[in-house]
């Protein structure tokens, strides 16, 4: 961390808030791509709105965001494009909304994936968090609904959590915009590489399984030069995921990684 070289101003919310410029849907060019993932009903859309200044309708019910919403903001002279993915409980099943989220994190190549979790239901939310960390390295955990956690007498140790997960953890109450400035700073730090994530990978996996994955990864790398995430593809192949098999066969999976980011977005949309 380079905090010593920066003045105290940087830690002041007023300073940071002044650095945020909400761009709405105007994002013709951008420096970094941010994906917003999380369980349903954790307030992703609210976080999205407070970052972009957009007024996407939010509602207290799961499944409100079916398609991706995108917006932009400028922070500290960098332009960010942010994609609000549909809420999912896991990335391991094959339902449509989960596919949108998974494909985007895998192939949309976001610079940062922000995982929004419900602080009052952390354990359940961590399942998705760990799955996201399996497929991407650069992530920020947004510990949302802190106001409710407080009301419910739930205390979360953000510092330990960050240490254990290996990514920045930012407590927020997006409904009242609390903590959004810290979230912005963490997004920026991860995007620029100022903060290097060392995400926790699930370890206690069956050794036989691990070996099987390794064998397939080796084969995949031999045959395809530019796979973005061979480990994940290997895991899906072991599960017999037909959509991944099809994508490999028709070449769309490999071609995918060569395309520009905006084209990737189309891929997700037209899926």
């Amino acid at each position: 961390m380079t905090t010593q070289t920066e003045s105290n101003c940087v830690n002041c919310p007023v300073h940071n808030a002044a650095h945020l410029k909400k761009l709405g849907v105007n994002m013709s060019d951008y420096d970094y791509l941010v994906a917003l993932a999380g369980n349903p009903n954790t307030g992703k859309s609210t976080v999205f709105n407070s970052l972009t200044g957009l007024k996407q309708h939010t509602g207290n019910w799961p499944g409100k965001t079916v398609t991706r919403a995108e917006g932009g903001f400028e922070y500290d002279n960098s332009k960010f494009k942010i994609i609000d993915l549909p809420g999912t409980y896991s990335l391991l099943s094959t339902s449509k909304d989960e596919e949108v989220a998974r494909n985007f994190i895998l192939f949309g190549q976001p610079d940062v994936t922000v995982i929004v979790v419900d602080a009052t239901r952390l354990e359940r939310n961590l399942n998705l968090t760990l799955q996201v960390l399996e497929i991407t390295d650069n992530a920020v955990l947004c510990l949302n609904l802190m106001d409710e956690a407080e009301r419910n007498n739930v205390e979360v140790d953000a510092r330990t959590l960050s240490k254990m997960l290996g990514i920045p953890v930012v407590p927020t109450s997006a409904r009242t915009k609390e903590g959004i400035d810290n979230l912005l700073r963490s997004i920026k730090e991860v995007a620029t590489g100022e903060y290097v994530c060392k995400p926790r990978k699930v370890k206690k996996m069956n050794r036989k399984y691990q070996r099987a994955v390794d064998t397939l990864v080796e084969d995949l790398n031999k045959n395809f030069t530019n796979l973005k995430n061979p480990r994940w593809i290997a895991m899906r192949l072991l599960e017999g995921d037909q959509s991944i098999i099809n994508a490999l066969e028709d070449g769309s999976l490999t071609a995918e990684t060569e395309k520009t980011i905006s084209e990737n977005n189309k891929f997700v949309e037209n899926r």
Partner: protein
Amino acid sequence: MNNVKEIVNKANVLRWELGENFHDSLIEAIYKEAETISKETVKFKGENYSFSLDRTIDKYVTSRLYGFPIMLILLALVFWITIIGANYPSQFLSTLLLDKLHPVLKDFALGVGAPFWLVGLLIDGGYLATVWVIAVMLPPMAIFFPLYTLLEDFGYLPRVAFNMDRLFKKVGAHGKQALTMSMGFGCNAAGVVAARVIDSPRERLIAIITNNFSLCNGRWPTQILIASIFVGALVPAQLAGIVSALAVVSVALLGVFLSLAVSWGLSRTVLQGEVSSFSLELPPYRPPRILQTIYTSLIDRTLIVLWRAVIFAFPAGLVIWSVANITIGGEPLASYIINFFDPVGILIGLNGIILLGFVIAIPANEIVIPTILMLTVLFTGSAAGHENGVLFELDSLKDTEQLLRLGGWTLLTAVNVMLFSLIHNPCSTTIYTIYKETGSLKWTLLSTFLPVGMGLMLTFFVAQIWRIFSG
């Protein structure tokens, strides 16, 4: 690509070696990890108040005994507040925009020497239709949407879905259709898009086709207005509000019933198949942020819907004025159209004007009532106080009622307008959305014409039975 085949084959062999439960062991590993981390980082101090409060509320609102009565009472309450509250601002707006501003504008335009047909087209046509839509729609929407949004924000809607789930499963549809149906109460196009949460294509189609039976934004004001005028008038004044509210609730419930019935029909004929199961998480209740909700629902929903109505109302006003003023062989064009629709209209307890109104309003259900009112004014003769195809001003429900009665409306007409407004084709936006979502002309046509057919049939039967009993 042979390489791909080889890799896939290898994966299959490896999967065989790993045994069947490796997927479970992967999930298990993730769950264990999550548990470990949360044990280290989360502390619960003392009682979890709102969780137990949530449980208590849920015990009642999702109970088999109280669930549905509570739903109905809440729904009726929302409409009652809307109907009572909308009356005065509506009156104020129509006095201002119709009584006061319209003559001023017209005099001014004629004063600067604009030709009479241009003044007619723009001010008697476009302007009047637009402000009429505003006066009729703005007040009920400004009250209804914030109330609806508050319920949504509080977390009540998923409970409705929970209550309805059993019913939808019974008719062979997906339980999540309860959610898309609830979305439809806001906007059918949104409801159709929301059907993406349903994975099975069969059940998704059922949800899309039946979404139109959810009364949408554009149709609530029609229901509320007609119910206040005709149904409320049947009972003493102090009961009028609650009785009209109940009438609107009945129509909405009929919509829910039809949604279930049509789902049942579809899943037993053209869309047969298994019911898939799913889990629905009931989100925690959250204290709604009242001021913010009112603000965003005014900005997000009310103004957007109103704007949509206005941009459709202005051209509709131009069309209406034109068909009423362009004459062929001494008769206005509209007469021909209305005479053409009249026989069918009267047979089903409506009339030609109303049917023409529904046709003109295909782009936006919001303008059904203003269109019908304008056409009625133009065709009921001087008794209503109009001159030469110009609208006259209505400044209260009583005036609107008098006008409609002059146009030949009875209680039967009112009831059938409410029914037909519930059961007719979706608006053009929704039709287009259905086409985009299904990618199939066949299902789009079915979704469009099935409700029209049902609406014509139902109003026909109601009219016949009504006429038998009223002699």
